[in-house]
């Protein structure tokens, strides 16, 4: 699997956007690099099978890389329809790396630190909201 092909697949799945702040592509978020590590390791079977299917459907890795965005999407959709289980597994894999990336968390308005130890702050409960409910009579039987 060539590096440009891997990037092209990853960026088709995770194209990013131009929101504010913009979401990076999957490759820019480091996902292609991590996927390359996976397909060089013991857990390569499923992602490798999907990548090979994409290359076959596109008539070669280079052809997929040269295709425009619409052409790549069409190829990937064909593979998704043909092998939904393995394809979903590949998507799950790249989503994990993407949505753990600092740059993506920050672009989505979140923080990079895990939930603990600092936790989060919420506004205090305004009990006056309950006034109409407190006026109700017994509801239980």
């Amino acid at each position: 699997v060539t590096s440009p092909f891997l990037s092209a697949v990853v960026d088709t799945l995770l194209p990013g956007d131009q929101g504010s702040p913009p979401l990076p592509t999957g490759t820019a978020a480091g996902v292609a690099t991590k996927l390359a590590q996976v397909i060089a390791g013991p857990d390569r079977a499923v992602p490798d099978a999907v990548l090979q299917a994409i290359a076959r459907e596109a008539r070669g890795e280079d052809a997929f890389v040269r295709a425009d965005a619409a052409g790549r999407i069409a190829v990937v959709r064909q593979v998704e329809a043909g092998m939904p289980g393995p394809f979903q597994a590949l998507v799950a894999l790249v989503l994990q790396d993407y949505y753990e990336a600092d740059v993506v968390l920050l672009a989505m308005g979140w923080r990079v630190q895990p939930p603990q130890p600092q936790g989060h702050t919420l506004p205090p409960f305004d009990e006056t909201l309950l006034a109409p409910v407190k006026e109700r009579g017994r509801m239980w039987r």
Partner: protein
Amino acid sequence: VARLEPVDVVVVGAGLGGSAFCARLSERAPQLRIVCLERGDWVDRSTMPAYRRDWQRAAQGAWSTSPNLRLAAAETSPSADYPVDDSASPIKPLMWNGVGGSTITWAAHFPRLHPSDFKTRTLDAVGDDWPFSYFDLEPYYDLNDTAMGVAGLAGDPAYPPKRPPRMPPLAIGRMGERAARGFNALGWHWWPGDAAINTVDRDGRRACNNGGPCLMGCPIHAKASADIVYWPVALENGVTLRTRCVAQQVIVQAGRAIGVAYRDQSGETHEQPAAFTVVACNGIGTARLLLASNVGRTPDGALGRYLMFHPIAYARGMFDEELDGPRGPIGSCIYSHEFYEPRPGHPFRRGLQLQVTRENALLSQASRLQPAWGRGAHSLLREEFRHSLPVMVVAEDLPEASNRVVITKAVAADGLPEVRVEYTVSENSRRILDFGLDRATDVLGAAGAKRVARVPLAPLTGWHLLGTARMGDDPARSVTDGRGRCHAVANLVIADGSLFPTVGAVNPGATIAAVALKIGDDLAREFVG
């Protein structure tokens, strides 16, 4: 097989039911020799993912709420799982196997059943009455509240007056406030949820800091769980807890249980004789063990049948304003019991709860989108993340004999038969969910949602495993009496959610513990009068 020294009581399962039972029985009858066998181990809180940068993916692997997903992740999970064949069930069973059981990964949303839930046959000609009433159980609810520590607000008109919670309610956040305004606009009931979560430092446990992912365990001890609440008491009282010991069989001779055969972590088999045997392995594990032991098993018998979940649907409202996202304890915010009790004109029997929850983590939200990839996925996530508000529809499942847990002839790695769940969402439950989704859509609209997305049935919500060894007076339709004693084997006791004849439309944790405490008292009277 090594035959061990006989004891008075052997308990299988150190989850919520087993732990509450052990703590209560050992307190009431301290002279008893009590041994508890637990297939899993203690959870080391320092290993919980909430401190780690990869915490989001942990929820899809070793710290998933699903035993099957944990096993499939091929990682070493701290939960000692067995596979559950759930291919014949649209709702997937969730559980944790270890000391504390599923309270390790529960949301700690802590409602009680309503009084009417205990007499559905009498009041509504459906289901079966419990052998005791809400008010019989009330002292045990109170005991459990004291042990767990409850944060909440007194005065909910949906419930009989009860002892005020000892801690103020959790912050309901911007999501709770937004939903509350929607309920108020419609004139509907709502109330901040009771939670077994500290809102102040108490009993050596910290106050919740709204970290969020309670379903992966609470490393700061703010969330109550059976391992940190009941087990210290039980151990102090002298109960022996043997972890990583998998019960293989309840041994019955001449109509009496004489003990339990179990396999320890080295693979060696032991026989633990006891005057009483107690099983508390949840609605799947208990049925599996008893069916494997051929205890009270008849072709049309109740054992394994009448499995009830709480079928769950979601409506998710999208708002322009920024809401909380995954801040705050995920399951505990506010609830509405506007449609809990039956009313003329409802197109279903019994009722439902509308429960406002917090949002999922970014990865979890991204993973369930359709499409899951491409620009469309990014666009949906932009609209949703920190701007959505989920309202969960919790349906009361009714007992159906065809919904059941069965064992197969194949043997699983833990030495017990493989287990399979056969479950269909009933027409009544489907009507409840559809009605509830319409009402959830109403409230989100009243709250100002610009768009509402509906999930007709959420598969990974099978937290509540109930009814497969139900209590009752009729041995043809029940497995035990009101004291948890098996009709077929009088010294075999069940002490978990399997006992529920009906389930109401609320989370069962508070009731499971209250029932287990009562059964502990019932058995203690056998010894101490």
